[in-house]
């Protein structure tokens, strides 16, 4: 295979790479936001629960 063909393949693969990395980055970002939201909610719920407990005492 000569250099020109290899360049063409690399060129075409860059599209494939772009598309797949967009999907993977998108999924990763979504998963991390979900994780962040879960932690934040768990924190808020615990805080409120503690406040209620203290009120009872």
């Amino acid at each position, binding site marked *: 295979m000569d250099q020109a063909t290899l360049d063409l393949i690399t060129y*075409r693969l860059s*599209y494939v790479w*772009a*598309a797949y990395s*967009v*999907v993977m980055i998108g999924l990763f970002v*979504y998963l991390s936001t*979900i994780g962040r939201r879960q932690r934040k909610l*768990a924190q808020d719920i615990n805080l*409120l629960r503690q406040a209620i407990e203290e009120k009872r005492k």
Partner: protein
Amino acid sequence: MDPKDHGRGHFALGWLALALLLVSAFAIFRYAPLEKVMLEVQKIFYVHVGVAWNAFLAFAVVCVASIAYLKTKNRRWDVLAAASAEVGLLFTTLVLLTGPVWGRFAWNTWWTWEPRLTTTLILWFIYVAYFLIRSGVAEPHRRASLSAVFGIIGFLDVPIIYFSVRLWGSHPIVLGKGGGGLHPMMLQALIITVFAYTALYVYLTQKAMAVERAKMELDEIKEGLREGAQA
């Protein structure tokens, strides 16, 4: 309820989705033959269709869950609808991002007003509107009812949108996405990819549902505090 409580089988499902994604990657890059016109770039087709199909599935679930909510008034259906819409919106975004990459190579333009692409874009707007309604209504039951109504209307509108955009499109479809008939091995790779993303869709929806349920719980605690303060 713990916001990390995802329901049964969530952990196993995560591993299943990951395994299926790896199998599908193998099927796409090693197993399926090279397409003759698009060559390597045709590999985008698998993930594009896999995500697109599941975006549509997600919105169908929103529609069904919305109908179920209006019939039963059980908040669990509202949680499912909201979670599914969220994952659907994510997938639609991914479809809209991978579509132009394909288009840039195939049609030498980032965007064409091709019926499927256009319909997907409008679909994206509809479900963004769905979340605008959800964030605009504070009272939980009213929010659930109103977003359910919109979830049903929006989904039923999709076939009409597709039909009208197709009728309107004077642009010729340069290349059918499969390039006519699919090679059987390509079809197998596609089916695996679709299933992989379906597993991923269910996995992500469970996560989003856990968040929605926790939000619901937080609202209830706050409501309890408010009533306690008044008494």
